[in-house]
């Protein structure tokens, strides 16, 4: 297959939803694999919390959203940012600390943002964006009826007070927000049942009167379907928030590019079923091989180009240090 560089940078025409899913899944996986590969070179001077293994959540949810819908994430948001359409080059440049980064090199991997694509930021302090997403949903309901907001957070965030406070307010005011708990069973090294007296996260959400659904197998189609149902209800008006718990598994260490099964806080055998159910591989099997080549080839070129862009981009101007503190 040979394409000229012009073509290489416009995404392939895809005819089925499965192909679209695969493009998004594969692209995220490849971006993060590339980050992990580059990492030892120390070009990425930033902590990276990889989503490898968890891509199905971001993709399944975001494929059910409109461009004008808005998402809020966590420090582990590469996948979310890309799935929602965030600019890849700006993201890579941000990780490299360059002026062309999505936050001009001031935010790093943990604070990705792409306002036009509806990625409204991410926080390094667990739980904080949940309340921000709720506030955004309040504004949306007042100013842009029909717009949907999605708040992504981990299983650890559920323990923070702000989570309960936010769910209560969202439910009380029946805001158009979907809460998506990406439950990978761990907060860093600590299993959920060592932190939560009652680890049934859907039950917890229901106590606020919020309908909640669990997808326990990381199936991107099921996640997508659940999201579509939720979004339909949210868009139509006053139904109040929805909640989806997606059980999923983090393949790499909490932060950084490596595996960590040698640390003994979890076993490789616990991970095996998740490796087997990998959304990227599973989805790949459903795609026509030619289309698959086109998709993967496109992604490889796009990512290579983005990395080259990041590398060749200028450092921020020194006087940027004191800009953007106030308007």
């Amino acid at each position, binding site marked *: 297959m040979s394409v000229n560089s012009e073509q290489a940078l416009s995404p392939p025409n895809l005819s089925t939803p499965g192909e679209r899913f695969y493009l998004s899944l594969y692209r995220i996986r490849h971006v993060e694999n590339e980050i992990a590969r580059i990492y030892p070179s120390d070009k990425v001077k930033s902590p990276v919390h990889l989503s490898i293994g968890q891509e199905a959540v971001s993709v399944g949810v975001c494929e059910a959203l409109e461009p004008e819908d*808005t998402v*809020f994430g966590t420090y582990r948001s590469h996948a979310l940012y890309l799935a929602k359409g965030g600019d890849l080059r700006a993201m890579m440049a941000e990780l490299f600390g360059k002026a062309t*980064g*999505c*936050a*001009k*090199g*001031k*935010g790093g991997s943990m*604070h990705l*943002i792409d*306002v036009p694509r509806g990625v*409204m*930021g991410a*926080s390094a*302090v667990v739980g*904080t*964006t*949940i*309340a*921000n*997403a*709720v*506030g*955004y*949903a*309040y*504004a*949306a309901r*007042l*100013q842009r009826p029909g717009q949907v907001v999605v708040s992504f957070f981990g299983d650890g965030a559920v323990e923070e*007070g*702000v989570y309960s*406070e*936010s769910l*209560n*307010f969202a439910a*009380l005011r029946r805001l158009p927000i979907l809460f998506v708990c990406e439950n990978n069973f761990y907060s860093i090294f600590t299993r959920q049942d060592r932190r939560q007296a009652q680890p049934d996260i859907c039950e917890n959400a229901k106590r606020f009167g919020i309908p909640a659904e669990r997808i326990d197998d990381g199936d991107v189609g099921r996640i997508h379907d659940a999201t579509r149902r939720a979004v339909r209800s949210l868009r139509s008006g006053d139904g109040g928030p929805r909640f989806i718990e997606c059980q999923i598994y983090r393949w790499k260490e909490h932060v950084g590019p490596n595996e960590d099964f040698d640390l003994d806080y979890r076993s490789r055998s616990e991970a095996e079923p998740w490796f087997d159910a990998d959304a990227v591989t599973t989805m790949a099997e459903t795609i026509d091989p030619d289309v698959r080549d086109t998709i993967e080839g496109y992604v490889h070129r796009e990512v290579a180009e983005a990395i080259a862009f990041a590398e060749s981009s200028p450092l921020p101007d020194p006087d940027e240090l004191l*800009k*953007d*503190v*106030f*308007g």
Partner: protein
Amino acid sequence: MRETRRTASYVEAIREATDQEMSRDERVILFGLGVDDPMAIQGTTRGLAERYGPDRVFDTPLSEDAMTGVAVGASLGGLRPIHVHIRMDFLMLAMNQLINVAAKSRYMYGGQVHVPMVVRSMIGKSWGQGAQHSQGLYSFFMNVPGLKVVAPTTPYDAKGCLIEAIRDDDPVMYVEHRILHAQQGPVPESPYTVTPGRARVTREGADVTLVGISFMQLECQRAAHYLEDKGVQAEVIDPIWLSPLDVDTIIASVAKTGRLCVVDNGWTTCGASAEIVAAVSERIGAQRPLSVRRLGFAPSTCPTAPSLEASFYPNPRTIAAAAYDLVEGTEVGWLPEERAELTDVEFKGPF
């Protein structure tokens, strides 16, 4: 300062500013515990729920942390929230959103977003408010880049600074003192703003510079009267905005008087008074000896017993005494007799 013949209270000034901005800009919303209740935040939100409806003016759950996050998120979403707290002490529950999110969003997202929210909070005093209902903690907000801080003293500034804060595209911490609420003063009816980063010389004098913050501005005015008895002419300055802080105006005064006494509504250690003294010393301390002094809360928790509480705070007489010592260059031990007309109006409930 604009001319006006109309007199209004500090409470009415806040209410009117809010009302005018809400009618001018439908993105302005107002929320916080009690904004629509019968007390209406000492009257400062009276009638606004009826006028602008429950979507734009609303009571909230007791959830200071999340509701501050909601204010940030609503700002990102295009609104301009005013979030009200009847005690500044309660902001300690909201510090994560204020310090880690509101102050930083513009910068850490490379200028792509801004957070045009206003946080109103009140400092309590007297009548047994005690440990947890009396603190003036704005130095925390001055410390962190990305937040503006304003602490108006007069009804005039109360209105102009609030309008400015609402129109400002960055988060503004708007600090009120409960005793100031009853103050009366000239307040123009039509909307106007009081520019950030400009202090006001409220009384001229050549002998000593008194900088009084928020309620302590009034106490400094009174202290200046006591000082007259000793032939001392105090220059009194109201910084109004604590961040950005107008150091130049203070320095111009201290360059003249050589003496500076900063009187604050908070503790002195790392407080606003430390900042002002340090900034002045840094700028002109090498040129000449400077007599500087900070007054603020006693270095203790605020007690409830009135007999103890009285000495927890600076008052016009202790301020005058400290300033006189600066002028004399030694501890003179003078404490003026109390004069009834210079006594503070006691704050009494409703709580």
